[in-house]
């Protein structure tokens, strides 16, 4: 393990809280217009060149966290209720960092795409159907870099070649509908990376792709990350993807982080019952189960989160403990660099109240895994 503890963090999300209104437009009375916390007190820290995986079921606030980082949550309906997102990746050497939540729109535009880029889940709809992919990449390049059009074309071609697209000169002149899903996701990555961002937010980059393409795209992301010294915030619900790529894992449930730790620690010794449930519901090769184990129940409706620990109605460890139903467990450091939020984790009472912060980065993967290898 390389000692990176003296590294400065790149991005610090502290107590982020984002809410949306419910009750629809017809609800005029104040009590009908309650607001729902989609994200409630999330803490995440990303270090340079680190991959932080955020895992969780649909609707647990993963995407909202990522979108908040770029101020992409539409406000009004949404609202940033509290917390801060400190960004230390400013290229002008400003070490104090800026709070991305409070940055004016104009300054935000310098950060979007240029310092922090984002790729989306659906490659089929993430490219504008009326422009060629060349026009779309060029627009971003010309916006952020002081280059002539000819240089920009070269950069765009190189970006396409970098993501493994053959004949980039001709591909640039094609429209999105002429490309397959995997190709489009490569184009999306090329577009995101054309401006050399420091941090890449990957919101389920492989969910919409078939399995062989998934492996290729992840391989590509990993390789580009090593080459470009990028940090990646990887949002996924696929634990296989996490095992292959992540350095640090944050498990989210109902808008909060319930477990946070090194990828080895979380995989070897999952503390939170929700994390254990996730692992149990993964099919194992050669396993004797006739049926897959599933976590009973559903993700709670965000407008009616249960009191106490949000997981308690589905939790196997609760066993009628009234504390679970009444008190929300905070995220505590149980063992060194391993946080969890559950009253029933052994040693929880002695846990330290610290902010999750791990600078660990896997040994720089010298040789990328051979192409075509499946998921973990």
């Amino acid at each position, binding site marked *: 393990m390389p000692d990176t503890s003296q590294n400065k963090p790149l991005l610090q999300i502290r107590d982020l809280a984002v809410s949306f209104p419910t009750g629809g437009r017809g609800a005029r009375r104040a009590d009908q217009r309650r607001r729902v916390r989609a994200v409630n007190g999330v803490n995440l820290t990303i270090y340079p060149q680190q991959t932080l995986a955020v895992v969780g079921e649909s609707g647990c606030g993963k995407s909202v966290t990522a979108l908040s980082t*770029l101020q*992409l949550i*539409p406000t*009004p*309906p949404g609202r940033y209720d509290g917390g801060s997102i400190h960004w230390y990746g400013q290229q002008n050497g400003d070490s104090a960092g800026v709070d991305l939540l409070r940055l004016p729109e104009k300054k*935000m*535009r310098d*950060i*979007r*795409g*240029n310092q922090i880029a*984002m790729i*989306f889940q*659906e490659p089929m*709809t*993430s*490219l*504008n*159907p*009326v*422009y060629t992919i060349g026009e779309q990449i060029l*627009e*971003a390049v010309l*916006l*952020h*870099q002081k280059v002539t059009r000819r*240089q920009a074309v*070269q*950069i765009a*071609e*190189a*970006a396409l*070649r*970098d993501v*493994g*697209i*053959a004949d980039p000169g*001709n591909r640039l*002149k*094609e*429209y999105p509908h*002429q490309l*397959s899903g*995997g*190709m489009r996701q*490569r184009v999306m990555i090329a*577009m*995101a990376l*054309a401006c*050399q961002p420091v941090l890449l937010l990957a919101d389920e980059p492989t969910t919409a792709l078939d399995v062989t393409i998934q492996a*290729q795209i992840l*391989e*590509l992301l990993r*390789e580009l990350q*090593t*080459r*470009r*010294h990028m940090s990646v915030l990887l949002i996924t619900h696929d634990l296989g993807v996490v095992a292959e790529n992540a350095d640090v894992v944050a498990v989210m449930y109902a808008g909060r982080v319930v477990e946070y730790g090194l990828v080895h620690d979380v995989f070897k010794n999952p503390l939170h019952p929700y994390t254990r449930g996730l692992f149990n519901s993964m099919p194992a090769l050669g396993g004797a189960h006739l049926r897959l184990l599933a976590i009973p129940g559903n993700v709670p409706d965000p407008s009616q989160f249960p009191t106490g620990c949000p997981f308690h109605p589905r939790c196997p460890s609760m066993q009628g403990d009234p504390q679970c139903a009444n008190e929300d467990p905070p995220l505590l450091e149980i063992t060194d660099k391993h946080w969890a939020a559950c009253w029933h984790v052994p040693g929880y009472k002695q846990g330290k109240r610290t902010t999750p912060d791990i600078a660990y980065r896997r040994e720089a993967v010298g040789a*990328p895994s051979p*192409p075509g290898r499946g998921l973990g």
Partner: protein
Amino acid sequence: MSEIDALIPHPGMPAPEPTALVQPPPRDQARQTLLGMVIQRTFANTGAVIGIAWLGVLAVGAVGAPFLASSYPLVVKTTDGQWFFPLFRYLTAVDVMLPILMILAIALVSLRRFSARKRVVTFFLAGIVVATTCLLLIHPQRREVFSEHRELQAAGKVQWSISPPVPYSPRDRQRDLGYPTYLPPALGGPHWMGTESSGSDVFSRMIHACRIALSIGFIATGIAVVIGVIVGGLMGYFSGVIDLLGMRLVEIFSAIPTLFLLLTLVAVMPPEWNPYRLYAIMVLIGLTGWVGYARFVRAEFLKLRKQDFVQAAIACGLPLRSVLFRHMLPNGVAPVLVEASFGVASAIMFESVLSFLGVGLVDEPSWGQMLGEAIGAAGSFKWWMAVFPGLAIFFTVMAYNLIGEALRDAIDPHSQRSTML
């Protein structure tokens, strides 16, 4: 080392070997844009082709009006061997500008070697240059009657001359020269569509009226579309309070009765503004007609702002202008185009109604004004004054409606499926 690393230097470890290139599937589909597809499907529709053909006839009439119908001969040779080109001496700036622009447009449409965007940009740049040069350089004297040629003829000095196909200008008030008014049409006669109250040739006026019919539709609708797109786009993109205020504004404007506002405007306008009456009508139709487009664009933008590619464009750090007009508008403009083609038709109707009521254009020939003369001062019904302009209005409005419907079918995927099966 990959190329991008070479282009933008940054410190760091040597790059690993690039992964094997993915071979793209063979390119069997032709490169076809959405726009290309829509144009192709529109042209496959018989009604649209008829409509476009009729508009083409009108365009030729509008552009070539001074060459098709004028009392000035094209060429005159006098008995003492002198040559005159009276027609060309009295061309106005617009008369010169329009044919040049039309030739330019046809040339650029047929030049398929360049991209559509390049051709459009060239057309607009050249158009601005041509328009300013013409307006600056050409100042003809205004002559009402073909007096010079007539004097030459009266003096017996004309050896021979070539006249345009319709040798009458729209404003030849031949009544003053003792010419018969309200002459019924006579095929092969001097006046194919008869004459009107002032003795002017109806056919000549019909041709010259094409200009107003086409320009009022395009300019009025153009103003309305521009306002509607901007207001509707902002409402749809920002939603919230801006949307609320915008929709109230839309409701206020929808409550204004355009026709009565036009009548009032024409009534209160001082007579010295008469030359600008046409423009005032256009602007007013545009200023009140944008609400429909704003509603359409708002609805489209409300849908589009949640789309991934719009989010991706914002996440790329593109400025609002680019997100709104480059990335959202082309995806939401289709219903506006359909609506605009109906809007052009209704603008033509407005002008015809105003002219029919006698409060429209004063001096310019217009179909509605001619229609009004059918039951005018003469006391009896003059059928040719009703039939020819009436048919022209009818065909033009129908042409725009046919094109609008064909466009709607071409854009709407549902109707496409039903016609394909």
